[in-house]
C-alpha cells in the first residue's frame, strides 16, 4: 500500500499531473496557472513538465477561457480550466449555461464537451469580498453539468481523475479552506465513479449529511456528540450532481433523523434539494423533520464576521438536539 500524508493541494496537483501523463489531450489553462502555478499552487510545475502548449496562461477573461475550452473539447481535447476564485467564474456564466451545459442536448448527443472547470470555492479563509462564495446551487440547477466537491485529499485526487475522464462537463469545487490540511491518502486505490456518496463515520442516532468544506465540521460535531453519548453518522455527498439517493437514503433510514450541513445560503439551495429528496423517499422512516444548518441568506460576510455565518459545531449540535428525541 502506498499511503502517504499529503494536502488536498498536493493531491489535486498529482491528479492533474497523472492525467496529463496518461492522456496528452488533457490540457490545463486559465489565469496564473502557468509559471506561477496558480494562486493556490494547484498547477505547480505543470508548465515545466508538460510545456507551454499543455499548461498555459490565457488573457484575463473567464468567458474567453471557458468559451475556448468548449471549442477545444469539440475538437478532441480534454481541457481543464481554472477559475481563480468562485466569484470570478461569473463572467463565464453565459458560456457555462448556454453552451457547456447544453451542447450535448442541442446536438442530439453528437457533440459532447468533456471539460473540467476547477473552482477554488467557499470561505473560512478570511478572504475579502468576492473570494468566498458558495455558488454550487447555480451549477447544480443547470442540467447538463456534473458538480462534485471533495472533502479530503484522497477524494480530491480520485474525483479529479474521474472528472477529467468524464464525457460531460464537470464543475469541480475545491474547498479553499481544506487546500492545505494534510491527511493520510492512498492515491493508488481505485476510485468510484462520480455520483457516489460515502459514509464517513458510522452512527446510529442521527445522520449528518454534508459535502465539501462542511464535511470536517460535521465530523467534528459527530465527535463532540459522541462525548455526550449521542452517535451521529456522517455522510459525505462528494458528488452533488449526480446525486446518490441510494447511499443517502439508506443512511437516513438507518437512523431516522437527519441534519444537512452546508456552507452555502440555505434558501433555494443544494441543502434544500437534499431535504426534499430524502423526505420524499424516507418520510415513513423519519422520526423528525429533516433540519438544516447552512450559511444565512446573506452575501458572504467580511472576514471579521464570517465565523457568525459558517455552520459551527455548536449550531449543528443545537440542531441535532431539536430532532424530537423521545427522551427529551
Amino acid at each position, binding site marked *: 500500500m502506498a499511503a502517504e500524508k499529503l494536502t488536498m493541494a498536493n493531491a489535486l496537483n498529482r491528479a492533474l499531473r497523472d492525467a496529463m501523463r496518461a492522456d496528452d489531450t488533457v490540457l490545463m489553462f486559465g489565469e496564473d496557472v502557468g509559471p506561477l502555478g496558480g494562486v493556490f499552487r494547484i498547477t505547480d510545475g505543470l508548465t515545466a513538465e508538460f510545456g507551454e502548449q499543455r499548461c498555459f496562461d490565457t488573457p484575463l477573461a473567464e468567458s474567453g477561457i471557458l468559451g475556448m475550452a468548449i471549442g477545444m473539447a469539440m475538437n478532441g481535447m480534454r481541457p481543464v480550466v481554472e477559475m481563480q476564485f468562485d466569484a470570478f467564474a461569473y*463572467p463565464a456564466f453565459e458560456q457555462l449555461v448556454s453552451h457547456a451545459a447544453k451542447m450535448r442536448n442541442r446536438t442530439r448527443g453528437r457533440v459532447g464537451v468533456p471539460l473540467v472547470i476547477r473552482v477554488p470555492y467557499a470561505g473560512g479563509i478570511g478572504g475579502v469580498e468576492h473570494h468566498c462564495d458558495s455558488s454550487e446551487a447555480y451549477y447544480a440547477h443547470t442540467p447538463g453539468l456534473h458538480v462534485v466537491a471533495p472533502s479530503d485529499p484522497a477524494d480530491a485526487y480520485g474525483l479529479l481523475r474521474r472528472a477529467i475522464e468524464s464525457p460531460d462537463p464537470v464543475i469541480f469545487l475545491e474547498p479553499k479552506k481544506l487546500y492545505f490540511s494534510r491527511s493520510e491518502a492512498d492515491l493508488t486505490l481505485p476510485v468510484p465513479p462520480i455520483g457516489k456518496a460515502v459514509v464517513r463515520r458510522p452512527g446510529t442516532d442521527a445522520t449528518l449529511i454534508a459535502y465539501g468544506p462542511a464535511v470536517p465540521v460535521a465530523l467534528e460535531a459527530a465527535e463532540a456528540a459522541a462525548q455526550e453519548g449521542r452517535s451521529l453518522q456522517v455522510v459525505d455527498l462528494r458528488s452533488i450532481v449526480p446525486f446518490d439517493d441510494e447511499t443517502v437514503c439508506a443512511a437516513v433510514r438507518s437512523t431516522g433523523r437527519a441534519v444537512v450541513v452546508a456552507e452555502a445560503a440555505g434558501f433555494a439551495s443544494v441543502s434544500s434539494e437534499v431535504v426534499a429528496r430524502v423526505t420524499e423517499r424516507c418520510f415513513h422512516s423519519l422520526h423528525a423533520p429533516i433540519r438544516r444548518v447552512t450559511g444565512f441568506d446573506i452575501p458572504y460576510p467580511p472576514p471579521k464576521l464570517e465565523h457568525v455565518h459558517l455552520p459551527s459545531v455548536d449550531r449543528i449540535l*443545537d440542531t441535532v438536539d431539536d430532532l424530537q428525541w423521545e427522551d427529551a
Partner: protein
Amino acid sequence: MTRDAALLLPSTEPVTLIDPDGNPVHVGQDMPDPQALVHAYAALISARRFNDQANALVRQGRLAVYPSSHGQEACQVACVQVLDPGDWLFPTYRDSAAIVARGVDPVQALTLLRGDWHSGYDPLTTRVAPQATPLATHLLHAVGVAHAARLRGEPTVVMAVCGDGATSEGDFHEALNFAAVFRTPVVFFIQNNEYAISVPLARQTAAPSLAHKGIGYGVPGARVDGNDVAALLSVLGAAVDRARAGEGPQLVEAHTYRVQPHTNADDPGRYRSADEVTPWLARDPITRVETYLRGRGLLDDEKIAGYGVSAEKLAENMRAGLGEDTVADYRDLFAHVYAEPTPQLREQQALVADELSREEAR
C-alpha cells in the same frame, strides 16, 4: 466626435514631460502650472507614505491583505487631481491611495482590506464608487453614472480606473462601446503596470498598445508615461476637459510598473527576475518631479520637510485608526441585504442573537 481614425490613434510613444533625471522634455503638450505640480508632489509624498504604512499594517496583521500601488503613485494622485469635486472616481482594489488623495478618510478607505466591512466610505458623499475587485465590471457602472449625469444636466465627468489585465475582460470592451455610442463623459484610465498577478502584458494583448483599443470603438486613445506626474496631469486633464466639453469618452493608458508583489500574498520570484524590476526603481515617480521642482526653485528642503510632516500625520492616523481592535456587529449582516429585511432574515438574526446570549450566560 471624430470618426477620423487618425485622430483616434494614440501617439507612438507615451507622452513624457519630465524625464527620469528631472529634465523637462519638450513635446507639444503643456507643462502643468507650478502650483499644480507642487500640489501633486505633496500628494505623492503622502501616497508613498500611505503605501508604506499599509504594507507595515499587513505585516502586523492589521490588514487582511494589501495590493500596493508603490511606484504607481503618480497615476494615483494625478487621476484624482484632475477631477472637480462633483466628479466621480471608479477605483479598483489597487487604488486605495487614489481614494485617500480624493479626501476619503484613510481608515474608511482601508475598511475593506481590514476585513470589517466591504466598503467603508460613503460613495454618494465622497463620489468614489466602492473599490471593484471583479475586474472591469465597474467600468460599465461608470458609464451609467456618467450617462445619468448627462440626462440630469449635471457637468459630471467620471474617472474609471482599471489595470492592464482588466482590459482583456469583456466588460472593458462593452464599457468603451457603450460610452462611445451614448457619448458619455467618462475617462477610462488604464494603469498598465505590465503585470496581472504573474501574467505579463504580452499575454494580454497583441495590440501595439492598450490605448490603441479605443479606435475600434471610436474612442480617442492617449499614452502617457505613468511615472511622470506632470505628463499625467496634462494628458488626464485634457481628457477630462474634452469629456466635460461633450466630446465623449476618452481612453488614457499610463505606462508604469508594479515594483512590488501583486499583494503581500504574492511571490514574484516565481515569475520575474529582480533584474527586470531594478530599472524601474530608477524611474521612481517622486524623484523626478522633485528634481524638476527643486531646479526651478519651486521646492526646497523646508517645504519637503513640511510635506513629510503631513505624510507622517497621515501614517499616524492610519496606525491609530487601524491599530485598534474593532468589534464588527453581526446585525449588520442582516440589516443591509434589502432595504427591509425579509422575515427569513429576521429569523436568522434572532437565531444568532439567541446563540450569543446563551454563550454569554455560560
